[in-house]
């Protein structure tokens, strides 16, 4: 479904966004992209929706080389993708129903088709009672459900989610992830970029880990981190400050200055 061959993306003036990335995602797979911020997860997403062009290398989606797509063809390519973002990207001046309907009408669907499909997908995502609310009247979890509904209403073969749970609490996140699993079960390939360790560990799905723009790990049923960190290791990582650091702190904030009275 997705084929990255030695893909490099350099952003001018800053560090490399992605360097020599090579991986394949098969049809119907569910893949986590993990890594800290700046590791290149979002760059991969941007390249996949053809918002950015790779500096070098080749990207194929469903057998088609993205570099061959002309500007005019990009909208038609994007209709085969569902995209979900951390900040939902809903249209603020449209109701839940209209937000989803817009995605359909943009693809040239008839009004009859829209009237049949939109309530269906909203029922599937558990929003049947919120049809006529505006996005700012919904909770974060509900907004993300709308955005998932919008992404999936065309039944695209590929769904991309960039930090879909980044703004949500753990319990709501599980709800969203279950929605994504369900979508995956209908045969849609799903790629999720996240740094939520708990979610990844619970899912036991394929994990691709990125670090500073490079792919450092690709496991079929992986965890967020290669080995579970013990409490001791974790404690070592946040060990007390070095003497040097303490000295700087002391000179910056002298202890003998009496607190000012206010």
């Amino acid at each position, binding site marked *: 479904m997705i084929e990255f061959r030695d893909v490099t993306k350099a952003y001018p003036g800053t560090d490399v966004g992605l360097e020599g990335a090579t991986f394949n995602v098969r049809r119907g797979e569910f893949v986590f992209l993990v890594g800290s911020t700046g590791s290149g997860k979002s760059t991969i997403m941007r390249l996949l929706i053809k918002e950015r062009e790779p500096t070098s290398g080749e990207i194929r989606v469903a057998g088609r080389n993205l570099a061959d797509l002309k500007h005019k063809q990009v*909208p038609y390519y994007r209709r085969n993708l569902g995209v979900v973002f951390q900040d939902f990207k809903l249209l603020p*001046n449209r109701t839940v129903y209209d937000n989803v309907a817009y995605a359909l*009408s943009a693809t040239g669907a008839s009004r009859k088709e829209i009237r049949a499909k939109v309530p269906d997908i909203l029922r599937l995502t558990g929003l049947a009672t919120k049809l006529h609310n505006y996005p700012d009247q919904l909770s974060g979890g509900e907004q993300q459900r709308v955005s998932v509904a919008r992404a999936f209403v065309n039944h695209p073969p590929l769904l991309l989610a960039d930090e879909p749970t980044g703004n949500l609490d753990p319990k709501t996140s599980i709800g969203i992830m279950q929605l994504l699993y369900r979508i995956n079960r209908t045969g849609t390939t799903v790629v999720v970029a996240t740094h939520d360790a708990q979610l990844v560990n619970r899912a036991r799905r394929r994990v691709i880990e990125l670090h500073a723009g490079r792919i450092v790990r690709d496991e079929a049923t992986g965890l967020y981190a290669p080995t579970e960190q013990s409490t001791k290791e974790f404690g070592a990582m946040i060990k007390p400050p070095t003497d040097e650091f303490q000295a700087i702190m002391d000179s910056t904030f002298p202890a003998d200055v009496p607190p000012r009275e206010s």
Partner: protein
Amino acid sequence: MFFVREAWRSLQRNAVPSFAAMASVVVTMLVLGVFIPIIQATTGAANEVRSKVLVDVYLKTNAKDADVERVRQVLAEDTPHVGNVTFVSKADAYAEEKKRNPEAYELLGSNPLPDTFRVTPDKPENVQALRDALAPLTASGARTTTDPAIEEVRNRREETDKILSATRVVKLTVGVLAVLLVLASVLLIANTIRLSLFARRREVEVMKLVGATDWFIRWPFIIEGILVGAMGGIMAVLLLGVGKVALLDPLAADFALLSSPETINFALLIAVILGASVGVAALGSGLSLRRFLRV
């Protein structure tokens, strides 16, 4: 139909920026609507003054009818730059002058005036060339005449020069002002539209992400621009109409200049203003979008 509905919806949702764009259309169109007649009145007046530039060809006082006919022939066929020729006979000239100054001509008794051709050049600038053709300069600086029956060829030289330079300045000033004004209006409208679009660039981004084609996104914006432009234009026309009825019409009864027939007629002015406002607004929103569509 879908696009019109979308455009109307976003007009309502973005009432404030839309209103700002509309207001700038109204203001610029008002200025334009006032300025077009003013430009026309001034160039009209200037042209009228320029049309008074002419060359007087005085014949000898003893010229016969045959001489008059010959000179007429020369003027009509052999002389360049001739626009219009009027013949003022001795008798006509006498009557004209007598009307202007009865006592003096009463005293004079006989008629001292010659037959005269008043010749208008084809263009006011050519007046000197016309004069040279009829009465070429000799080497000594004196003038001869091309026909023995012509006594003298005269243009009111100083007057002519003044008129020509004054009308040139007026035309130039008005032209420069008009160009600046149109430029300012277009920039103002384009800027306002760009501002209101900037507030909605996220919307455009989302539309692109769900696979909307550029034109699918653009049409509602263009129709919105047309609506804004049309409403602004109509407002401006209404205000101009009120101004015309309330201010100009009572004045026109008193001053001949204002009712000068060369000014544009009101219906045409309305058409120009409506066309300009709709065109500029639609084009402005369509073009300003380009920046945000490049995702």
